Structures are given as structure tokens and as C-alpha cells.
């Protein structure tokens, strides 16, 4: 079973809250969900939508056809009519506008009349629509009432009951007037405790799990909810969360606390990251660990703040002046975000260098269901690895930048009695003092670069392969947050008699070209799929592996892919 519900209306009318309630109701009925939001960079006005796909099996992507469309205004209908099928229900109020198509199932609910009768504000339309939606799919209204009680009981019991009365009205309206159209899609089924997490939620949890002591940020869509999550948990976690004056302060403050020994991270999006770049270079030469969470949105400059793109991969990899090692990771879904982000904190400490976690709006703000047990188990087995730390020394003096085989110098956390040292933004000797001697400069460059080889040997992970690579005729290649749609496309194509595999990159930089070559040079049709206009992973592969993937599907209108788009493209391209 796979079912897509979508609600749309004017911004400022509670679409986001309503959508998340729908997702949670599906979870509480024992189903899996994937949702996403569309909204302009405004607080009021403009068009907002919330789309939820529900399934009784694990689900990683939206689907193209909409099964139940709730139109709180006419725009919702006009924007989405091409995604409707003859089986699609459309909830609307015919007093407000009429639907031009006849080959759909019209569910006319008198929103305006109900609002007048029950003396409700326009925002209550949401509750009526939720009630009607649940009635149509055979869901339990009690779950909605319970959630409303949880959401609003802090305000007052009267507010709870007021909201519930509109939901009840919408529910009964369908039961009375459209009994024959009701389908029992969402019957309760037993399921283990499941959470609805966004990529940002997963990063936030990972930071708590990894015992990050200090998180610093300046709000920037679509990364801001990490800041607000972690700030709202401070009294429970003890993590210090600081909203600094700008992104330059953000990363320099984090580097100050990291230098002084505290696990530290920052979060931002493209423009804020651009401001941080000088300090990333500082982290490189001073060998200070820091985790940087970068939620991409379409640029350049302010771009399209609330939409999605994978446009900052190469910028991230090449960020920072001068040459120094850094690690770039791009989790593909909320589970990978949880695990890879927590691992990023270890890698930053082990390699004493910046680690960048790339997300994108589609991953950062879309909810995906994840079993609570997965989170709890990971939490319990996670181990903090702080790398080569020393607090007792055999010698009188300490060399912060001691030359070592693996490039990693033992790190002494400041404050240990009897010692002192300087970390240095200038090129330096082993003891940290500034130098301009050519030989010493070379030694330090080589030492820092050696960390790359050590990382490739110890911690680099090859891209994951999904599907049967040996049997595959077609191989999709992608990275980061497109994972879910690529996986779905791979399944559909395979089912439709094009044996397909997926190579999905999460450990993006540095890459081990030698190990990657066989994966990318088999006798297969390769198709590179990226949410950008210049095929940045393609360029990276060409640079690091020496292989060019000629066929590309690139999307850069700010929207994510639907699996069906990838399937259609592949079929046209490869079918005779």
C-alpha cells in the first residue's frame, strides 16, 4: 500500500502544523511515512504545501500521483491538477471555486459555512480538512483528537475542544454525505514505536549522542531547526548553544572552544558557509577539530532560500584557502544522518581537522519514519573516540605539531599543569612557533597531507551499492539526499525489466580513486543523477577517478526529483 495525501493553502494558515499532524497520525496507526514541504521565503501570503506519502513498508521517497488533495484555496488545485488520477479525491469548497476536471473524485466540503456556523477563524479550515481526510481513508478520529490535546493543552482545554469540534465536523461531513467513497486505507496495525525525523532532527540527535559540548549558529534556512532543536534541549542535555552575531563569529567561537578541548560544531547554509570559509582554513592549519553542518539551498547569493539543491559539493570540497585535509560527508537519509553525523564528531577529533556534513533542504526538512529502537540502539552503542589525546608526557616540552608517520600529532588539551603551547595560524615548527624556513614548511604540509592517506586507509567508506550490481544493465549514480528517490527509481526500473543498481556516495571527500575505478568502469549504462546544473559529483569523479559519466539527469529548478522522473528519463534513454 502506498498513499499520498497533500494539503495546500495560503502561507500563515497552519499548513505545516496540519501536515505534521497527518504524518504523526499515520505513524500512530502503525505506518511508515515520508513527507516534504513547499513554501516560499515569506511568513504570510504565497502558497504552502505539505505532502505525506504513507506506506505499510519502509518508504524513502514521494510518489508522483496524489491520492487525496486538500485544496484550502484554488491555487492548490491549479498547481497540482496534473498529478491527479481518476481515483484521486479532491477536497475543496465549491462555494469558493469549482474544479474544471470531471475525471476525479470531488469531495465538496462547505468550509466557509462550517466556519460561520461554528464561529471559527479561517485557520480552522485545517482542522475541518484533517477530519474529512481521516474519514475518507478510514482512519481513527480519536488519534487526531489525542494529538490536538497534546498540542494545545498547554493553552487551555477550551482551545483543545474548539479545535476538536472542527475536526469532528469535517469527519462527520464525509461520513454522512460520501459514505460510499470511504476506503479503509489507514486501518490501525501493530507496529514498533516509530519516530518522524527530519534530516535536521537527526543531525541534532547525533550531536547529543556524540556528546558535542558546544553548538554555535546563526539562523539560516534550511539549517535553522538544528539551532532551535538544540537550544530547546539545553536544559536536558547541558549542551551550550549559542546564537552568535554572524557566521564568522560562529565558526571562530567554535574553534576557540574546540581548541580549549570541547567537542564543537556549527550549522549553516550556503551564504553563511561562505562567510566561514577563512576559518575552515584556520582549522586546517591549526589542526583544530570542528564539525560543520551545511544544509544546501539553491544559490547563488540568496537564491531560493526554501527550496532544494545539491549545488555546494565542489564549493565545500574546495573551501578554504591553501591546501589542507578536510572530510566531506553527505548522508542520504535520516538514519544515515544520525549515524554519519555522530561519526563525523569522531573523525574530526581523530584527524584534528574540519569535517563537513552536507545536507540539502529536501533532506533537512522532510520527515521520514525511523524505528525508535534504531535510534536508541545506536545511542547505546556509540563510542566517543577523541583520537590521539595526551595528558601526561614523558618529556618536559610538548610539540603540538610533532611530525608523525600518519600525520596526526598527539593533542594536549590546554590547561594540563606544567605545560603550555601555541597553536598557530602561521606556518609553524613542530612546537608551534612561526616559521618561514622552507624545509620546515614542507614538513608540516606533508604531515597535514599524510592525514588524507591515513583517513583513506582507516575510515573512508566506498559508496554503497543497492540492487544486484552484477546483473544490472543500468547503474544510477548519485549522492546525498537524493538517495531515497534514487532507490525507489532503482526498484521500479528493476521491476519493469531493466535490471538496475544504484551507486550512492556518502563519503564524498577525500575519495580513493583506485578503489572506485572498477565500480565506475563496468560494462553498464551509467546514469548520473544530481540536483544541480553542472554535475558536480560527475566532475569530482572525473578528477579523482579519471572516469567520465556521459549520461546525466540534472535538475536545478529548486525541486527534488520524483522517482517517476528518473524512471521515465532512463526508459526513454535506454529503451529501443
Amino acid at each position, binding site marked *: 500500500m502506498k498513499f499520498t495525501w497533500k494539503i495546500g493553502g495560503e502561507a500563515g494558515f497552519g499548513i505545516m502544523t496540519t501536515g505534521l499532524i497527518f504524518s504523526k497520525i499515520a505513524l500512530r496507526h502503525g505506518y511508515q511515512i515520508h513527507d516534504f514541504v513547499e513554501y516560499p521565503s515569506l511568513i504570510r501570503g504565497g502558497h504552502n504545501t505539505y505532502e505525506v506519502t504513507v506506506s505499510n513498508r519502509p518508504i524513502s521517497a514521494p510518489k508522483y500521483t496524489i491520492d487525496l488533495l486538500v485544496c484550502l484555496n484554488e491555487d492548490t488545485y491549479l498547481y497540482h491538477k496534473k498529478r491527479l488520477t481518476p481515483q484521486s479525491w479532491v477536497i475543496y469548497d465549491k462555494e469558493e471555486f469549482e474544479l474544471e476536471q470531471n475525471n476525479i473524485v470531488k469531495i465538496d466540503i462547505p468550509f466557509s459555512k462550517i466556519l460561520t456556523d461554528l464561529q471559527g477563524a479561517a485557520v480552522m479550515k485545517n482542522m475541518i480538512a484533517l477530519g474529512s481526510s481521516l474519514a475518507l481513508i478510514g482512519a481513527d478520529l480519536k488519534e487526531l483528537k489525542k494529538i490536538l490535546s497534546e498540542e494545545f493543552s498547554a493553552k487551555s482545554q477550551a482551545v483543545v475542544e474548539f479545535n476538536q469540534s472542527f475536526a469532528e465536523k469535517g469527519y462527520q461531513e464525509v461520513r454522512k454525505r460520501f459514505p460510499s467513497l470511504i476506503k479503509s486505507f489507514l486501518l490501525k496495525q501493530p507496529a514498533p514505536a516509530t519516530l518522524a525525523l527530519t534530516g535536521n532532527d537527526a543531525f541534532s540527535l547525533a550531536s547529543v549522542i556524540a556528546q558535542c559540548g558546544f553548538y554555535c549558529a546563526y539562523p539560516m534556512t534550511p539549517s535553522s531547526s538544528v539551532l532551535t532543536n538544540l537550544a530547546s*534541549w539545553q536544559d536536558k*542535555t547541558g549542551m551550550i548553544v549559542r546564537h552568535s552575531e554572524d557566521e564568522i563569529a560562529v565558526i*571562530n*567561537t567554535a574553534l576557540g572552544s574546540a581548541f580549549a578541548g570541547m567537542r564543537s560544531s556549527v550549522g549553516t547554509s550556503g551564504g553563511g558557509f561562505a562567510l566561514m570559509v577563512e576559518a575552515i582554513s584556520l582549522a586546517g592549519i591549526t589542526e583544530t577539530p570542528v564539525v560543520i553542518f551545511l544544509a544546501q539551498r539553491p544559490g547563488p547569493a540568496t537564491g531560493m532560500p526554501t527550496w532544494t539543491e545539491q549545488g555546494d559539493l565542489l564549493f565545500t570540497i574546495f573551501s578554504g584557502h591553501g591546501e589542507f585535509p578536510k572530510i566531506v560527508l553527505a548522508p542520504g537519509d535520516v538514519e544515515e544522518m544520525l549515524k554519519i553525523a555522530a561519526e563525523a564528531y569522531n573523525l574530526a577529533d581523530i584527524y584534528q581537522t574540519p569535517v563537513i556534513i552536507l545536507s540539502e533542504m529536501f533532506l533537512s526538512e522532510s520527515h521520514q519514519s525511523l524505528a525508535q529502537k534504531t535510534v536508541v540502539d545506536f545511542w547505546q552503542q556509540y563510542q566517543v573516540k577523541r583520537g590521539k589525546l595526551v595528558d601526561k608526557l614523558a618529556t618536559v616540552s610538548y610539540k603540538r605539531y610533532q611530525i608523525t608517520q600518519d600525520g596526526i600529532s598527539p593533542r594536549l588539551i590546554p590547561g594540563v599543569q606544567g605545560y603550555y*603551547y601555541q597553536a598557530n595560524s602561521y606556518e609553524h615548527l613542530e612546537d608551534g612557533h*612561526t616559521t618561514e624556513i622552507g624545509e620546515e614548511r614542507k614538513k608540516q604540509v606533508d604531515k597535514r597531507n599524510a592525514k588524507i592517506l591515513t583517513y583513506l586507509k582507516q575510515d573512508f567508506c566506498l559508496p554503497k551499492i543497492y540492487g544486484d550490481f552484477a546483473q544490472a544493465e543500468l547503474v544510477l549514480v548519485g549522492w546525498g539526499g537524493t538517495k531515497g528517490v534514487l532507490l525507489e527509481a532503482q526498484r521500479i526500473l528493476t521491476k519493469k525489466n531493466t535490471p538496475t543498481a544504484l551507486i550512492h556516495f556518502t563519503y564524498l571527500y577525500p575519495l580513493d580513486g583506485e578503489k572506485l575505478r572498477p565500480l565506475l568502469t563496468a560494462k553498464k549504462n551509467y546514469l548520473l543523477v544530481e540536483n544541480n546544473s553542472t554535475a558536480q559529483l560527475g566532475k569530482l569523479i572525473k578528477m579523482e577517478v579519471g572516469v567520465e559519466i556521459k549520461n546525466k539527469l540534472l535538475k536545478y529548478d529548486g525541486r527534488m526529483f520524483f522517482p517517476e522522473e528518473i524512471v521515465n528519463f532512463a526508459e526513454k534513454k535506454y529503451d529501443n
Partner: protein
Amino acid sequence: MTIDNLTGYKPTWCPGCGNWGIYTALKNALTKLKLSADKILVSFGIGCSGNMNDFLNAYAIHALHGRSIPMAIGMKIARPDMTVIAVVGDGDCYGEGGNHLLHALRGNHDLTVIVHNNSVYGLTTGQTAPTARQGYRSKSTPLGIIERPLNPLSLALTQGVSFLAQASAGNVVNATEIITQAIKHQGLSLVNFLQPCVTFNKVYTYDYFKQHTYLLERDYNYRDYNLALQKAEEYSQEKFALGVIYQEKRPTYTDYLNKLTQTKKALDYHLLLQEFS
């Protein structure tokens, strides 16, 4: 472990540079306060002043130009038990990093900020700094600088500095006392150091400072904000009071954080996870 124990790195400043006086005063103050090298964290900006990183024994980081203050804030957040000092220049702290200074003042972070103010960029061979007098001719302003100089004292005072002092690199005894008090103060201490750049600034010489500075009277009331404002305004008339200009007692950023970390409970993950189901 003492501050005096130089490890063979000889300062590279020009003979007669004001930095010598500031460096000596800082070392004297740390010695006086019995703060050994392992008890202090120092964040240096980039410039001639920042080069002190190579000569001062401490747990230190030579940071980026303009970014020494945020780095010091981070240090204090991680190690509230250690003394944190930011050694910066005027271009560094009043120019490139001006925004950070404003917001550090708001937060009353428990730091001592020592600004080397010589009105020129010495390390880049003598361009104008934001504190240079209007009309000052330099390599970057051969026709004379158009902007008026920034008044760091009024700026700091009106934005909430809790300890404000001015010292002269030419008066090490007085400067030692001022730095000692600045470090002892709990909250943000700003010490504006007047210093000559003997190589690139032919206006602000030792002689100039001798003529334009005076020691604050013994009975000067540094708790009086309005009086302090008057003293601060004198800066714009090139009349420089030396001593503690203002001090107030108010909770520091660290005090608020301590409240937070003290209320920390054993973390129960159910508390965090319940909002997601």
C-alpha cells in the same frame, strides 16, 4: 612555567616599538597575579601585536585577523576555570573585527581584551587604521583619510563594557597596574593601549603621547558612568586619560552558563525522543 621563562624566541618588533612596553606590562601583571603559563588561554589577532604569540608563554592560539574575540569567547565557554586574554590590534579589533567587539560587550564575556592602538597597520607597512585622525596621510590614504576616527572608549562604554581602561605603552608601571585590574575584573575588560609605531607613524610618537596623556586623579570615581562618558569623549579631542575609566559589577556570560550546566540532569533519551512520535 612562569611567564618570564622565555624559550629562546626573540621578539621581532622594531627597536622602540610600543609593543615592548605592552608585552612587559602584560608579563608583569601575569607574574603579579601568579598566573602561570598553564593557567591562561590567549587568543592573538594578526598584526605586529599578534606576533606576541611567539614570545608569550601560554596556552595560546594565533588566530585570524579580526577574529580573536570570538575565539576567546569560545575558549571561555569551554574552560570557564581559566583566565582568557585576547591580544589584538586596532585594525584587528576596531576594524576587521568591529562587529565581534560590539557583541562581546553585550554579552559581558569574562575576557581581557588588550588592544594595541597605534593608528596604523604596521605589519602591512603603514596604511591607515580606523583610529587615525581625520586627514591622516598614509600609503592607503595619500590625500588624507576622509573618515573621522573611531572613538573606542565611547563605543565600548555605550555598548555595555563592564571594565574600561586606557594605558600607554610608554608607562609600563601604570600599564602593569591597569592590566592587573583588568584581568581581576569579572566580565569584559577592554584596555585601549596607546602606542607609537616608530617606523610608520610619525604623528603619534612617544612625545605626542607624553603631551596628550594624563593620569586619572586618585579620587576619580570610575563607578560613575556619566563621568566615564566625559572621559571617553575626550578621546575625540586627542586628550587621553590613563587609568581605569569605568568599572561596574554585573553577571558575566559565564555566570549564566554556570546556571545552565548546574541544572543539567542525567540525560534520558525518552525526554528528547517523545516529541518525534
